[in-house]
């Protein structure tokens, strides 16, 4: 088990190093001179050179990269061009909102996907099944920057149940979470259905029924527990996509999280903040995948002992 974890950890570190390199290089992709873009054309030569030196842009690329890495190790991501505050502080300020949104989304997603998938599998080829799978098809196809406004239109403007945007009160998280969770629930419900169908045919299910257990107990204790393993893996893989989707959803609802910060930073050309947001989201994604991998190897020895992939 330890070798397995060490193996995966080394792979993840390599990937994180690559991610850091790409994020570092992003700022050098900007067409033209970043300093000129930041200060505008009216700035004096002295100001420009001063900013260039303070950003370290006058140094050779390799030197800049090392300085960036060294800063990362000290959790120093530079400071925002606009507010002049350390970027790490900005991120920490916005992180709780995104975590609340992600957690609520996860709850709503599971509440939608698991019952839908189970019903579809139990009543295979019935109206229930085709209804659930149609929902899944629609959910995959509806973009969240359209679903969000539609939900606002119906539930905030017409019915007045939830606030239009912002983070006031408990109800405010509901619409963003539904918006963000629908696509994920669509994918998951399909997975629950196919995984459940596989389990339903197993011998131990027949045994459980034969010994006279209540149907609900058979489904939940014997069926669902076994069917959920692949579902959890998929959930881990999709959690990162959820973080990326949060960028758009948070913009729709003006939800003050990391995603909205990313867009605000892009619009105000606050490059250190853009870099830090992209880095934070991607590294969280890598770490979530790593944890899913390790958990899966822990649960299922076949994967652990298979070595590598």
């Amino acid at each position, binding site marked *: 088990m330890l070798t397995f974890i060490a193996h995966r950890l080394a792979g993840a570190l390599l990937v994180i190093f*690559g991610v850091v390199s*790409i994020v570092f290089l992003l700022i050098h*992709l900007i067409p033209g001179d970043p300093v000129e873009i930041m200060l505008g054309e009216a700035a004096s030569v002295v100001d420009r050179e001063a900013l260039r030196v303070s950003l370290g842009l006058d140094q050779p690329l390799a030197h800049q990269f090392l300085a960036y890495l060294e800063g990362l190790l000290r959790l120093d991501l530079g400071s925002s061009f606009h507010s002049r505050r350390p970027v790490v502080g900005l991120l920490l300020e916005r992180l709780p909102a995104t975590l609340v949104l992600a957690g609520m989304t996860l709850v709503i997603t599971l509440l939608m996907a698991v019952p839908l998938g189970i019903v579809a599998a139990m009543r295979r080829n019935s109206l229930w099944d085709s209804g659930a799978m149609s929902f899944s*098809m629609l959910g995959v196809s509806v973009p969240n920057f*359209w679903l969000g406004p539609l939900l606002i239109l119906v539930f905030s403007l017409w019915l007045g149940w939830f606030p239009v945007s912002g983070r006031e009160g408990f109800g405010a998280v509901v619409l963003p979470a539904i918006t963000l969770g629908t696509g994920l629930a669509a994918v998951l419900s399909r997975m629950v259905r196919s995984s459940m169908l596989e389990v339903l045919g197993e011998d131990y299910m027949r045994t459980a029924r034969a010994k006279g257990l209540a149907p609900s107990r058979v489904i939940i204790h014997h069926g669902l527990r076994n069917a959920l393993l692949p579902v959890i893996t998929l959930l881990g893989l999709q959690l990162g996509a959820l973080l990326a989707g949060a960028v758009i959803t948070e913009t729709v609802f003006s939800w003050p999280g990391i995603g909205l910060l990313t867009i605000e930073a*892009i619009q105000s050309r606050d490059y250190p903040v853009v870099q830090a947001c*992209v880095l934070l989201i991607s590294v969280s994604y890598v770490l979530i995948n790593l944890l899913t991998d390790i958990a899966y190897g822990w649960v299922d020895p076949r994967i652990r002992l298979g070595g590598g992939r």
Partner: protein
Amino acid sequence: MRVWIPSGILGAWALLALSVYVLPLSPNLIQLEHILMPPGEGALLGYDDLGRDIGERLLVGARTSFLVAFWVVGLSALVGTLVGTVSGYQGGWWDRAVVQVIDIFLAFPGILLAIALAGLLGPGIENVVMALAAVGWVGYARLSRAQVLSLKHREHVWAAEALGSSRLRIMTRHLLPLMAAPLIVEATFGVAAVVIAEAGLSFLGLGVQPPDASWGAMIRDGTRYMLVAPHLVLAPGIAIFVVVLSVNLLGDRLRDAMDKRLVTAMRKDQ
């Protein structure tokens, strides 16, 4: 039947996108007396916040999404397949390096990297294509590499190698034709992903520049007037939704059809 309806919708999408070059449209004409007018006579889909004809802007938006989808899927599939095939067939350190690069690109979830790239490159349709293709090639590379790895020890490839065929010939004549089916399925779903991604970038203000129209930008502009004029948001949203749904339905059918062919082929083998 279940293939014809989505195919028809996608055909209509392509036709409407190309019709923009022929029809006498004035999608940027501002008519202040028509501001936010609902669908009715004059304009089938009503007017937007500047009094522009939403129907005509929807057509221009169709062209935007069609062009972006065409170029992004084309470029990504070409580059990705090339990299994946060569890498899988060559093996060695080159292959290990490519796998590492693929893993790194896959570590950026969803369209996050495209958002960052498009944001840094600045708005414009070319930059959208570049940003999405820079992210999109990875999927095709991974898929074609996996395909090559499973195919390259087949007997017909050994036979070709024994006969002294060149590597290029083996890759193009003996490997690519067998890999085409899954790549086509991947590219079909790719169209849906790119249409959503383009509209998403435009929604964030990182896509096409005004006054050019994009379905995503139309949704963003419309959200400000949702209570008084919901048609501003509904029309482009339905357009995206219908196109993406059709692509996904078609992709599902295609995948099922290919799966069946695969199963029958395997049965014959036994």
